[in-house]
């Protein structure tokens, strides 16, 4: 790897200051996306700002309406501690592998917004609120396409609030090697209606409004399709295949609601 500095601030304010202290900086949480990207020189930051010594960023609390998960909570911690939303705990337990889940974090995944990551689907379907060092974002405004979010340079997610649904389920068709979603569907039933989020299929996580409307109306899902024109084609699957898989995964998720 290229030469980099490592800063380990002990407060949120120091972390923000460290990021701005000069040169190209990157925050590092669990590092399980960032370090592989640095090894392959997709990213070449001059300074890494390690958030692990900032206190209070990994708590999981439930205020009744929302389950709040600290941004530095590992996937293993969410799998074990998000029992108030079993579908969220189950999703966390399917990310990567046990050693990856011991290091990777919720905040790192959401800030990175990989189009095949699992968590963005849960954030979108569970009306997630991203609280940062300077603002609060609703999920519908936060995700802005492939690896793009509403976060400003140097902004730090501190915690994410998930609306506790009446019922929810995540169905994922995963790449057997990377375990990223080829297509993942997170379906949730809230008091105000259904929300269905799709990850892996398109350039970024998206809401499937036609599926939501059908579920709200109690109508059949048989005629509900995703338009393959908006979906990805890559070495893993064609857009048409992903569109078909989305229907299959939707049926699997809805069957668990």
């Amino acid at each position, binding site marked *: 790897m290229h*030469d980099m500095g*490592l800063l*380990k601030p002990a407060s949120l304010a120091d972390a923000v200051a460290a990021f701005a202290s000069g040169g190209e900086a990157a925050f*590092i949480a669990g590092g399980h996306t960032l370090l592989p990207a640095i090894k392959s020189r997709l990213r070449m930051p001059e300074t890494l700002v390690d958030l692990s010594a900032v206190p209070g960023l990994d708590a999981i609390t439930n205020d009744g309406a929302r389950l709040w998960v600290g941004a530095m909570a590992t996937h293993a911690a969410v799998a074990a501690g998000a029992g108030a939303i079993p579908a969220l705990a189950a999703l966390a337990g399917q990310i*990567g592998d*046990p050693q990856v889940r011991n290091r990777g974090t919720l905040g790192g995944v959401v800030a990175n917004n990989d189009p095949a990551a699992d968590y963005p689907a849960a954030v979108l379907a569970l009306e997630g609120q991203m609280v940062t060092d300077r603002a609060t974002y609703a999920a519908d405004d936060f995700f802005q396409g492939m690896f793009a979010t509403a976060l400003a340079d140097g902004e730090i997610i501190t915690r994410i609030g998930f609306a506790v649904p009446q019922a929810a389920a995540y169905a994922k068709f995963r790449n057997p090697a990377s375990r990223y979603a080829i297509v993942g569907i997170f379906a949730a039933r809230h008091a105000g209606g259904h929300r269905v989020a799709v990850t892996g299929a398109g350039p970024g996580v998206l809401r499937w409004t036609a599926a939501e409307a059908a579920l709200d109306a109690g109508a059949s899902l048989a005629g509900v399709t995703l338009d393959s024109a908006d979906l990805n084609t890559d070495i893993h699957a064609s857009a048409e295949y992903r569109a078909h898989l989305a229907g299959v995964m939707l049926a699997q998720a809805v069957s668990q609601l």
Partner: protein
Amino acid sequence: MPLQSPIHLTINGMAHAVDAPATTLLVDVLRDTLALTGTHIGCDTSQCGACNVLVDGVAVKSCTMLAGQADGRAITTIEGLGQADALHPMQAAFRAVHGLQCGFCTPGMVIAGIEMVRKHGHDLSHELIAHELEGNLCRCTGYINIIKAIAAGAKAMETADA
């Protein structure tokens, strides 16, 4: 706030002040700086698990952790589990059940097995072990005996703990 050398690591019970850049990979500090070459580099892309070590008792892939991120932590490598004449029960089970062929993946498999005991106790079904091994690759295709070895090692650890 800048993390300078030396990096302070407790490795296999011994305190070390390591003179290496904080952004060195933990696996490179273990192998190149400290000559603890039992921790292997298989893929270097956090897929294969040959580099698994315990950090504060929790299994991590040391190819995907910076030495500076481990500053102040306690690390256990395969060398810290047992001695040639007094193997750790999980190591002994791999030998007894022939849970290895070429042995390259074995240090990571042994660490993964110990992690399973931490999370799930001493009575591990073969199905659970197979699921928990999703982060460890064996290219000799020796998974069946690896699973048997971890099941036997987990039970033996209970006796050893008692």
